[in-house]
């Protein structure tokens, strides 16, 4: 049975996969939040949102 060779992981992916599942989830959440407002000049509530994400996930 032949199988496709797996694509080698980039260094960034290796670093991410070494983080704990809790931190991986937190990073995903805050990146999603940041992506929404990335190029905006006024990003007043981004810090509040990040703060809330950390509070929600880290009990």
């Amino acid at each position, binding site marked *: 049975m032949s199988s496709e060779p797996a694509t080698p992981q*980039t260094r960034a992916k290796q670093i*991410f996969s070494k983080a704990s599942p809790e931190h991986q989830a937190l990073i995903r959440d805050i*990146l999603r939040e940041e992506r929404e407002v*990335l190029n*905006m000049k006024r990003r007043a509530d981004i810090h509040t949102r990040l703060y809330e994400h*950390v509070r929600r996930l880290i009990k």
Partner: protein
Amino acid sequence: MILERIALDNFRQFKGRQEIIFSEIRDRNVTLIHAENGFGKTTLLNALLWALYGADGFTEDFEKPDSLIHEGLAHHAKDRTRLSASVELTFNHDSDRYILTRELTLAEQLNDPKRARLSLQVMRDGQTIPLDNPQRRIQAIVPDGISKFLFFNGERIDHLAMEKNSSEVTAAIHQMLGLKLLRTTIEDLQHNNVRGKFLRELKENTSDEKRDLLAALESSEGKVRDIEEARKQADANIEAIKKEIAGIDAKLDANREAHELQAKRVRLLDELKEFGAKRDDVVRRLSKLVAEDGYTLFTGDLVRRGTEIMRDLRDRNMIPAPVIDSYLQELLDSGLCICDRHLPPGSEEYEAVKKRLSAAPNQDFNNAVSAIDHAIGLLQGVSQQTRDQLRQLNTERLELQNEIRNREEEEAEIHQILGGKADEEVQSLEAARKRHLLEKEAQHAKLGGLDRDLESEKETIERLTTQIKAISDQEENAARAQRRVDAVEECTRVMQAILEAETEELRPILNDEIDTHFRKIIDREYWAELSPSYALRIRKRVPGLEEGEVVAEIDVALSTGQRQVTSLVFIASLLSLARRRSEIPTILKGLSGSEYPLVTDSPFGQLSIFRWGVAKWVPDLAPQVVLLVSPKQFDGDVADALRETGRIGRRYYLAYHGPSMPDRAQPQLVVDGQTVQQYFQSNEEFTQIREFES
């Protein structure tokens, strides 16, 4: 983003409606706009930036940014709400067509010129649909962070290729290739309202001991911010001083009394840079040699003693072993001795051979003897080689040091002569030059001190952080706050590591692009690259002192022209990678490739000998290229090279009407044999955009 058309209405000197239709044809992707200095090139570039980003987009050299409406019309306007300036930009992006309009009435200009109105419409299926949040959408299409790499004054782009601006280079990579998301997130997590807030919560709930440590940490972090601010200020001061010195040098060059010596000084300073770079390279090679092979210099006694021992053992026939155990075992097994006597088990002869077998060394012993011989020989060879190389590099270093000292002395002599001239202007310029040089040195010394303080403060922070973590909290609120602080720190660390890894993985890909572009302009002895610390540099190979010696690779001290070329090459490489971003592996999802135009004012100004090469290659800089050029920059090499490319799609010129012609301008413009009137005497001042007849 590909530009289709820009239409200006009463924007500064562009009275009435004036427009440019950009060439979008791939094979003829260059739009040329000819204009004498003072006719409106910079205004045109700023009209485009204003349309996209409002007043925040203006270039630094755009004067009176609060006065955008044509002055003559504004002066005579009866109804301030009916007179306005506007810029309308039509462009394509990711298979959609957009019309962007920014408009400002005279009433608005007088009230708050930054409050211009913006609208963005997308054209789909023959219909025009207005879009909400136009500024946000424009930022998504072409973020202002990348605009300075797309729309810029070519004469001011050389700063990218300065060693100290490597942070600007990494910022450009992050901006253009989508890694800004990580960078911004890291900054936001460290913000006072995120990490700071959790730290405050921890402080409120924790023990007195930990609270004191947290206060110390806060104080150290504040000091780090202050030091970094002071570093920025010192850097800015050094830049300002350099500009002052450059201004003084230009004045000395223009002075008849000082011209000759100043020219000699410029040559000496260039040579000093070159020799300095060579010396630094030799010192680097010396350090590498000492670090890697230096130990061999101290092995003389060891080698001598080892050789003696080996010789002694050899003399005593102890090495190599004359008889090894496997041979004796073979004799015993065969039952026949080397002397043809039988060796029956239990016989006296058999026991005699067996006794020798227990004391005989094996093959490994002889192998070890050979290995020791080899190691001693190798050590001797490397030691001698290291000694020779060390001597040679040191001689080279001293010779270079000598060259440097000679030039420094010559330069000091020039200072003496110029300072002693009877001409008062020369005297005072030379005195001011010396004062600035001393101040520059003082600022460099200050930077050194700040760096040491920074290092020490960072060590303190590391120590305090470890101490804080070591104290476990009994109070649940405090323990939870500590977990949250730890989570923020850990996420920051992981994202920082990811950002560094992704940037590092882009470096060889970027270097391939940079090299490909660079070789089209500058000859083969040189190559351009991003150093491991992200400084843009030009390298060259230099032969050693003896024939056949391995050549060294050194940094070339860059002229303004070389820096400008290198910066342009870097931008072209980024644009090229931005186009094929989706093909390059990244952890971030949804990074698609995008095309961008390049609009540059005066790109050929400081290029000197590279003009022809750059002009020949400029159509390949980006999918669409818009060049604003003065006749002085264009005539000759640039005109010839661009004509040869056959890539000019559209061509315009700016016609100026006014009471008098700006200095050094000509009334007529001659381009490729076509003569047009570009200055018109008029009481009213305004500029028109006119297209060349094809």
